[in-house]
């Protein structure tokens, strides 16, 4: 729960907002983008997107006047980065023509890019406060994990084969984790309950050790991927906001000032 809290909260917010929107749509028709409710949804979504873009960046640069943990700001950044675009999507009233449609498309691209960025980001080992872990610290953690595993297993731990460093180690880690978890579950299933309980503890330590070894092996690749992602994601976001400001300006001009 705590690991993906921002995603779960964002999902709940989307379900709640989507439910209200659906109820209104069924009773009164789809809220038009130019009407009060549609406008309000769009304005709120844009404010959340602005918050997504600015607040986390400000916190990252406010190291001397730190307010809150970086990981929590990142969670807030991800939450608003999901809910805000969802509100803007509802504001579109499912009409994707002209500049407004282009802005919506760009928003979708930026959001997808954000998900990819988070995936890469989580491959980089960090402290609970969000600080980066260096290779030396990771080696120390590996030694601790091995000692703990020897004590739990009652015999020396046979070191597994060396992990090959590379980009695939970062991007393909989740599928591999899922495959390994499935295999462990199958092997544990054959044991009696007492042996399964003892083996589960050893297995968990083995998993932790494997992850640390993978992080050490992929540390350089993960950092390189994250930098590359920043290079792509930031111009996309900038283009999105510029186009959005054009859209807002046109709306104010043609709808509000030019009655």
């Amino acid at each position, binding site marked *: 729960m705590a690991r993906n809290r921002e995603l779960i909260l964002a999902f709940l917010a989307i379900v709640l907002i989507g439910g209200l929107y659906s109820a209104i749509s069924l009773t009164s028709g789809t809220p038009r983008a130019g009407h009060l409710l549609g406008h309000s949804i769009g304005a709120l979504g844009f404010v959340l997107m602005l918050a997504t*873009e600015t607040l986390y*960046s400000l916190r990252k640069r406010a190291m001397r006047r730190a307010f809150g943990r970086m990981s929590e700001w990142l969670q807030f950044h991800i939450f608003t980065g999901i809910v805000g675009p969802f509100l803007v999507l509802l504001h579109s009233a499912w009409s994707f023509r002209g500049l*407004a449609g*282009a802005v919506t498309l760009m928003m979708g691209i930026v959001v997808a890019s954000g998900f990819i960025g988070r995936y890469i980001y989580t491959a980089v080992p960090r402290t609970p406060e969000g600080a980066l872990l260096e290779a030396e610290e990771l080696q120390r953690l590996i030694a601790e994990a091995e000692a703990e595993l020897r004590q739990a297993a009652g015999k020396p731990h046979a070191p597994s084969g060396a992990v090959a460093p590379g980009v695939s180690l970062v991007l393909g880690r989740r599928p591999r984790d899922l495959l390994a978890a499935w295999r462990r579950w199958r092997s544990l299933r054959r044991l009696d309950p007492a042996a399964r309980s003892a083996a589960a503890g050893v297995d968990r330590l083995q998993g932790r050790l494997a992850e640390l070894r993978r992080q050490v092996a992929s540390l350089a690749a993960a950092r390189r991927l994250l930098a590359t992602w920043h*290079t792509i994601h*930031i111009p996309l976001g900038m283009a999105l906001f*510029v186009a959005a400001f054009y859209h807002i300006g*046109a709306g104010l001009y043609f709808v509000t000032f*030019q009655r």
Partner: protein
Amino acid sequence: MKRPLGCLTGSGLLAGILTALVVTAAAIASSNRIFSPGPLRQTPGVRIGGIESHADLSADCAACHPPFWTGRRMGDLCLGCHQEVAAELEDPAQLHGGIAGPENCTICHLEHRGPTAALTDVGRFEFPHERFGFSLYAHQEELSHSPVGCRDCHTESLRSFQVRACAECHFTLDLAASGEHMLAFGPGCLECHDGQDSYGSDWDHNATAFPLLGAHNRIQCSRCHLGAHTLTALQSTPLRCVDCHRLDNPHSNLLGDDCGACHNPETWEDATLDHRLTGFALEESHAELECLDCHENRQWVGIPQACFGCHSDEDEHQGRFGQKCGFCHRPTSWSDWTFDHAVIGFTLEGSHAQVACEGCHTNRRWAGTPRDCFSCHADDDFHSGGFGTDCGACHRPTSWADWTFNHNRSSFPLTGAHASVACVSCHTGGGFRGTPSACAACHSEPAVHAGLFGTNCAACHSTSAWMPASYNGPHTFPMNHGGAGGNCRTCHPGSYGSYTCYACHDQGEITNKHSERFSDFSNCVACHASGQEGDGGED
């Protein structure tokens, strides 16, 4: 090197600038069409200046959206094309008159909603429809319960109304009722209905001066509102029963026009006439009769109210008692009667009230029955005619024994002790008449003065008692001698024919005094005529 804030990286700024350039270029190249929120309406309408629909202006945003530096509003451009609307603005009788202007066209008229979307949506504007004589109070929804739109009724033009639009909806709602209604009242819905007033769905006939009661609530409207096709005609529908039911009147106009006095609105049959209003209350057996028993041939007026008018054939008295049957008989039945005998001057009192009528009226002869006692009671005369035939002078009607005789009316008033003696003490032998009134006839002369005073008892005695008596006749000797005070017995203790002086005077002394000189001195008065001692002298 200090990291830039957020997007303000070199690549970010470059992307922003490039995006701005691209959007600006696209806006210029498309004449701002990239900002269009949706396609314009494409449905052809009235051709104005070569333009059939707004979609023909899609390539020229400025045709409706004037640049801000020109100082013009969108509404100015609207009215520039739609001059027929501009002409209406000042005339309140027109569609846009008084409510619209160049500043508010877009409140009702929306664009960019699609090629076929409606241009007009008055949902955001409270259009004062009632000023055209028809309120939308009762027309908030159309058949599918969606908010009613202008075109739901104004199918051809917003500036005109075809009344068939009413029928199209209302026939769908209720074909039978609407058809009947239209047949009854005609197709001119607006002649009566204004959408809100009392002829809408809330209208209640019972709130009018003619509530629909009884059978009136079940008949077709046109039965009463025959040919009423306007509000004035509807409201002029007569309210009186007779105005509609004159032909239903079976009374041949004999009972007047106030049907409701007898009939109720439910049915003609269940009439409840308060017959008292006719002056002839239906009581007892009269109330059980059918109307036609009396009102033959439905003759409702002119029926005689006197009993004899209907019952002359039933008169057992053969007219002897006249025609006022009700004088004795009550309406329950002929046998239920009470005769007030007093009205003929002969009150049935006492035992007369207990006697059967035939006791006096033999052979049911009622008239000519004598009223004097003796005519009936001659055989009962205890006095054998001795007191005449005026029985009532003494007897009361209760019984023969209940009588009181006023003796003072006779030649011998009963005074004194006579009043308390029994009648038979004087009237011996049952005879009353001829009883002598002389005292001596009843009272024999007493021994004390037998043969002395004659039979004129009253000369000395009163009727109260024999004593005291007051003798005023000749008496040679002073009656108050020796203080006798008129007490006869002082000197006459045995009989008034003799006397003695020795009740007071000592006989021995008298004897001694007179014996020497007189041989007979028993008659004292002979010598002492005045009772004085010296009356006799020395001789």
